[in-house]
């Protein structure tokens, strides 16, 4: 999926009522079927940009085009349906407590399942690749932070989305965990998905082939070499 931002601006209203400009006319084109890595200091707006790309937020000005379609202009219900093609890894895993690992991974598929089969090959494959196979039936509130994050990664990839937005996917991961997560994201990119990930982690280019490196700072997104 070809995703492009055109003069994208976004402000956040602060508690005292003033507006803080997080993104200032950001323009970028993420390579189709490639991995893009966005770096930047805390609070610079990386998560906000990811949420804008996912259609969870609407920009103040500018637009986001997905395969030429102005997603950011669509109404909420239209964006909800479009999001079936988007896999999101949140900075905080945001799992459904009380459900098992497998059930959490299944969530994006449920409305369109033909029959309820928790043992879908795709789910089993992802859990296996992420080192979660032995935890498949465990309730997610009993997992460690790193394990929870990997469940979030599996959930984002389960329906083979065309756009994968991973916000700090390696947070809380040990070296093995990072390798498992990043290899899956790289594979998704090689299979044609557009992968955009944010991370502080400098180890990323050592594990993952990055096609586009960007730095977000003071509302500006600039390419890095």
């Amino acid at each position: 999926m070809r995703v492009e931002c055109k003069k994208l601006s976004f402000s956040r209203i602060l508690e005292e009522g003033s507006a803080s400009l997080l993104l200032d006319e950001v323009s970028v084109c993420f390579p189709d079927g490639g991995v893009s890595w966005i770096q930047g200091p805390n609070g610079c707006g990386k998560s906000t940009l990811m949420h804008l790309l996912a259609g969870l937020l609407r920009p103040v000005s500018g637009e986001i085009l997905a395969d030429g379609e102005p997603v950011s202009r669509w109404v909420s219900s239209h964006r909800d349906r479009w999001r079936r093609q988007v896999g999101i890894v949140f900075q905080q895993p945001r799992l459904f407590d009380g459900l098992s690992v497998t059930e959490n991974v299944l969530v994006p598929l449920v409305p369109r399942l033909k029959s309820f089969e928790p043992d879908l090959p795709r789910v089993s494959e992802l859990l296996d690749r992420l080192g979660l196979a032995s935890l498949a039936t465990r309730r997610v509130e009993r997992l460690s932070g790193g394990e929870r994050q990997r469940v979030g990664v599996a959930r984002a990839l389960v329906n083979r989305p065309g756009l994968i937005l991973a916000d700090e996917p390696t947070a809380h991961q040990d070296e093995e965990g990072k390798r498992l997560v990043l290899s899956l994201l790289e594979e998704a990119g090689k299979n044609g998905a557009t992968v955009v990930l944010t991370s502080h982690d400098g180890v990323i280019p050592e594990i993952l082939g990055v096609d586009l490196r960007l730095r977000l700072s003071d509302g500006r997104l600039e390419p890095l070499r």
Partner: protein
Amino acid sequence: MRGFRRETPRIGPLWIWAMRDLQRKPFDALLTGLCLATVIVAAAVGPLFSQAFSNTVERVLVDAPSLVVRKVSPGGWQPIEAAEASKLALGVPGVVEARARLWGNAAGPDGPVTLFAADASAREEFAALGYDLPSQGEALVGPAFADFRPGDGLTLVSATTKILQVKGILSADHALSGHDLVLAHPADVRAILGVPEGMASDLAVWVFHDGEAEAMRADLAQAFPWPVRVTTKADTLGRYASVLERRDGFHAWMLLPVVLALALLSIGTMRDQLRRRSEIGLLKALGWSGGDVLRLHLAKSLLILLPSCSIGAIMAYVLVFYPGIEWPGTWWFGWTSRPPALSLDSQGAWLVLLEVAAFVALPWLTAALLPGLWASTVDAEELLHDSR
């Protein structure tokens, strides 16, 4: 990307998912279901009993005489001259039938009973119901005597004491009218009640049209050379009306806590749904449409509501109609002995239960679905914010 398909939603897995989602907080779901069932029971018992009672009264009064004539004196009622009274009544224009009846109250083993003479004129009527008329020394008894078996002795005390042999027990179908009835041979009834030969307890009069009964009351009273008291079917209905008023007052009283409980339950459900709106945001972020979210909420609500309605309706039905249930009769009528079986109109009962289920289900379902309906139209990010 262009023109992505609007896929047909699949209901099956969504229902399984809804069940799984409820299991995340099983006690909440169970408690909500039990509360709903209890509210339905509380709301349904009154109207159900009311409907059954009205049916029974209607059935009893269908065969009742249009007018009843009793001979009275300053000391109370007196036996009436059977043949002469019938002849005089038939002389009144509009009277189509007059039948002298021999009946009265006697003390039975567990309290007062209604002793009624079954004479030969009723033979065919009884045969149609599957009973033979009792011979001298025998008795047919009502459902209140269900502990008796054919051949048992039944001691009755009034002017004299007599032991009659139980010949059979009238079925519960005869309900209110025959509940504590003892049907015996006229000679036995006369002996027990002390009514002389040729005399009767009262005179039952049928007129061409029940609507004329009130107008004929005065004519009938003047036709007899003795002081009489004439009562109409409407008078009998009036006696029932006082019971009905008590019953309606009770309904109103019952309805208040039911409405309050329902309001509390609905508000609680709505608050719980609103507390969980960040989950709706997450579902939308993961590609669920507003319709998917709403269908999930509907499935979850129905999974609680349908069993609750069924259990509540069944419990209300059993509480009113289960054979041997005593409390409705005790509450409404003060019956202390075995209660009569109420006449049941299954169609009417279904209607009452459906009305009550709708009365409870609609507000609760609205409360359960409104937050989902609202959330399904809001941006996912706005809902996700709520959990931060």
